[in-house]
């Protein structure tokens, strides 16, 4: 690191710092600078002393590049303060950020410059009655220098609010300004609200559609509820903004003598006669020539406002707007805004305000003090001529007073809430609670309601509403009229005393609960549930089970079809099996059938012995046919041969053949001795058949 960097005087307002081994840094110094501190990338900070004999000047609008820009003539800038401090410039960013960040920022903001202007005007209703109000919303988008309209000669502006929002969508900065006007029609009929036009470079760049509002007479109202009393004009005059009605959040532009300055701070006060007690909207607006690399501004000294009551409004953070002063484009930034109310007549001074304007880029920033000029304002007392007797000092503005009862029928002992609203623009603080004159039979008491008041600072000074509530308690039955209430005020715009009043209200008070014209005090629409007129109180429902049927029933219904199907299936399968195994079954059943037949023979022996022996022989042959498939017509020898061929025990075969011989003998030559041997024959045959049956499938009984 070269500990002896050299500093070079470059020219008026610009100098260069260089150190060996590093690129030179080019700085603006539009005023005498005693020392500057430079941090070279990656190295210890070095301080160099630079003496620049230059007058105070702001840099000419330029892109944030290190190249020298066009010089400013010294006389183009007016120093706002002779006590300008030495500034220390630091460069805390390494080279990477110095090179990359600007590229990123430029690429991000490249799409933010193409802004389209548009303006829309919408009303919350298209028809209303006299005495009612509508809300008009004006939304302006894009950059424009001025706005014109709307033309609303048939309406009174009783409230106004403004707002600004900035959004970045897809890299495009979208600025939107909203103005909400609360309008009260002056007459019935089809009233027109003219279009709003946005101006840029003296030409209309966007325009809204005109609106038509249908205003009807209020049903049942007196012919002229807001009509003028004999002594004074009755209709509230337009608020201070209504005539000017620029749908801008800020006041009109500065006078032409400021044109050509690089930056100036201008205190704006309405250019008309101002009165004591009138909240006057004041703005301190910083105008910076378009294109100047402004990084920000901070208030250094705020005005004192001695002799005023101040209602400061919040200063929006992104409120810049483009204006032209004698054709020179400026960006205007509101530094302070609010309403000031003079406490006494005479000339009063709005102090100067100073801000430090910071210009440059991310890497080199400088601050400049910019101060406003003091403004002397002459405040007058409202004139004594034409002052109503009920005028209260300080009631300066344009107001509308209304009253409403929360219910129009009550019972004796009950209460109704009377709400009196004073809305409009002006010194709402000075508006006092009206004196409610109620007829005998009603008792009035004030209800605290200050928490319902609304006040806001806008171009008209202060606008909003005061709300007074009274509890009217009925002491006697009857029909009462709450008389109208008047509010006299001084309108600073028309410089006249004016008056607004409420409509008379009716309140019906019924007797006690035993009778009277009032059936219900509670509004029936508040009841959203119904009841049954009669009910069978003896009905005692049993607790219901959640299952629709008993589980046993459901189980039975589930199992029944399954069992049925299984039974059918089993039967089918059994039948099929039987058909497939018919022969085997027949053989298997041969012995049991033979035994059954033998038991039958033993139990019921035939009368004729020959029949017995014939039956026994038939049993044997049936068994042989079923069991061994041996024909019943074969002679005994062939039976023996057939059985032996099936590997049946020869002993059993011999016994069987002997028995068959005995049967043949008994059939053809019955004898008494043989006849007595029936039982033994049956036993032998039974045993013989059993022995033969054991020889199934070739396994003879041995």
């Amino acid at each position, binding site marked *: 690191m070269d500990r002896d960097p050299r500093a070079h005087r470059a020219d008026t307002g610009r100098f260069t710092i260089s150190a060996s081994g590093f690129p030179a840094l080019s700085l603006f110094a539009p005023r005498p600078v005693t020392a500057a501190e430079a941090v070279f990338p990656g190295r210890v900070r070095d301080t160099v002393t630079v003496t620049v004999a230059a007058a105070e000047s702001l840099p000419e609008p330029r892109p944030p590049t290190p190249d020298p820009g066009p010089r400013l003539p010294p006389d183009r800038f007016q120093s706002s303060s002779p006590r300008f401090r030495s500034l220390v410039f630091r460069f805390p960013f390494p080279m990477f950020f110095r090179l990359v960040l600007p590229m990123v920022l430029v690429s991000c903001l490249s799409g933010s410059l193409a802004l389209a202007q548009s303006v829309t005007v919408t009303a919350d209703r298209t028809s209303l009655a006299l005495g009612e109000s509508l809300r008009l919303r004006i939304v302006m988008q894009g950059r424009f220098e001025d706005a014109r309209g709307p033309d609303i000669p048939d309406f009174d502006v009783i409230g106004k609010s403004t707002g600004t929002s900035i959004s970045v969508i897809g890299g495009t900065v979208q600025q939107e300004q909203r103005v909400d006007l609360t309008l009260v029609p002056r007459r019935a009929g089809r009233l027109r609200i003219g279009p709003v036009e946005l101006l840029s470079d003296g030409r209309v760049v966007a325009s809204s559609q005109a609106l038509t509002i249908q205003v009807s007479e209020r049903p049942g109202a007196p012919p002229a509820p807001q009509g003028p009393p004999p002594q004074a004009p009755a209709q509230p005059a337009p608020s201070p903004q209504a005539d000017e009605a620029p749908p801008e959040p800020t006041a009109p532009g500065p006078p032409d003598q400021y044109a050509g300055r690089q930056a100036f701070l201008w205190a704006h006060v309405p250019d008309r006669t101002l009165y004591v007690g009138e909240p006057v909207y004041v703005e301190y607006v910083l105008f910076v020539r378009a294109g100047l690399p402004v990084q920000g501004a901070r208030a250094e000294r705020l005005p004192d406002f001695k002799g005023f009551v101040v209602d400061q409004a919040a200063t929006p953070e992104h409120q810049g707007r483009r204006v032209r002063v004698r054709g020179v484009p400026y960006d205007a930034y509101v530094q302070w805004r609010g309403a000031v109310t003079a406490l006494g007549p005479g000339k009063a001074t709005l102090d100067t305000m100073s801000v430090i304007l910071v210009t440059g880029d991310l890497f080199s920033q400088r601050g400049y003090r910019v101060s406003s000029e003091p403004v002397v304002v002459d405040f007058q007392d409202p004139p004594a001529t034409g002052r109503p007797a009920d005028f209260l000092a300080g009631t300066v503005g344009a107001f509308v007073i209304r009253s409403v009862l929360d219910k129009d029928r009550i019972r004796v002992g009950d209460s109704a809430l009377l709400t009196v609203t004073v809305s409009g623009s002006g010194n709402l603080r000075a508006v006092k609670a009206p004196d409610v004159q109620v007829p005998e039979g009603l008792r009035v008491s004030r209800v605290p309601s200050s928490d319902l008041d609304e006040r806001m600072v806008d171009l008209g000074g202060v606008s909003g509403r005061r709300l007074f509530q009274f509890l009217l308690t009925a002491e006697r039955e009857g029909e009462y009229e709450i008389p109208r209430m008047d509010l006299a005020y001084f309108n600073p715009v028309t410089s006249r005393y004016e008056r607004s009043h409420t409509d008379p209200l009716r309140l019906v008070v019924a007797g006690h609960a035993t009778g009277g014209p009032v059936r*219900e005090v509670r509004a029936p629409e508040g009841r959203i549930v119904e009841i049954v007129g009669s009910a069978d*109180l003896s009905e005692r*429902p049993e607790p219901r089970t959640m299952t629709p049927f008993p589980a046993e029933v459901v189980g039975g219904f589930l199992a029944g079809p399954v069992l049925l199907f299984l039974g059918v299936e089993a039967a089918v399968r059994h039948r099929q099996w039987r058909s497939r195994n018919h022969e085997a079954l027949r053989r298997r059943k041969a012995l049991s059938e033979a035994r059954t037949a033998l038991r039958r023979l033993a139990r019921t022996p035939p009368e004729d012995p020959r029949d017995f022996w014939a039956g026994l022989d038939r049993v044997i042959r049936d068994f042989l046919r079923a069991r061994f498939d041996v024909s019943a017509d074969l002679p005994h020898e062939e039976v023996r041969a057939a059985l032996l061929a099936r590997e049946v025990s020869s002993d059993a075969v011999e016994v069987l053949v002997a028995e068959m011989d005995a049967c043949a003998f008994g059939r053809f030559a019955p004898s008494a001795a043989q006849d007595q041997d029936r039982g033994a024959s049956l036993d032998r045959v039974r045993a013989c058949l059993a022995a033969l049956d054991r020889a199934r499938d070739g396994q003879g009984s041995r």
Partner: protein
Amino acid sequence: MTRTWMAGTVGSGVVLAVLWMTTPPRAETLDDRFRAGTAAFEAGRYDEAARVFRDLRERYQLTSPGLLVNLGAAEFMAGRPGVALLRFHEAVLADPDSRAADMARVNAERVRAALNERRGEGGTGYVFGPYHDAWTALFGWMPPRGALLTFLASWTLLFLSLAGWRVLGSRARRVLGGVAVAATAGSILTGLSAYGAARVASYEVAVVLEDGAPLYDREDSIEPRLALPEALEARVVARRGALVRIRLSSGQEGWAPERSLGFPSVTAP
């Protein structure tokens, strides 16, 4: 004569007074009380109406659906929406097909709508409505009895057709085979439906009666996870001691004190 007249007059007066004092007061029937409650409701004296109806329910053990509807309406108008919803649930449970049950359903919907509108004005952040989940969305509209009957019919048809398919000849088997396939699909669908409808019907509902009732993650939690608003409806999942595990329509589950919940029941208190 004057003395006699005076004595007679005084005696008559005494007799009349004794008679008046000893005459039993006219008996007030339960219907009279019910009508008195209805009249109080119509006159906007909702607290009084609720007290009368509540007295009929609790002291006289009445559980008529009409009484429950009126009690619920009076409780709601008196500012107790949780109890009101509970009574409407009970009226529906008592006799689902009655006119009073229909009115209870309508009233319950109105109460929920009112609570939800209140929510829009900066209320609880919960959506008030009957408990619902995927099962109620799919099967809540089905009557459980009808769904079960349909399933049993389809089930029986399935096995009858199978049995016939096994027994009858080839020509009939073709028809019965198609019937069996259709009955199989029908049994699956109707069986699932019957299960879902029965499951939904068996849900035990709970209504939050205490505004800000705590909902704990676990039984042994100390810090509640949620504060439940009054009149929120939930499903009872389990019980453990004095804690009830409930499931909200949002799917969140937790344990809430039993005392802060109401469970619809048609049995008299």
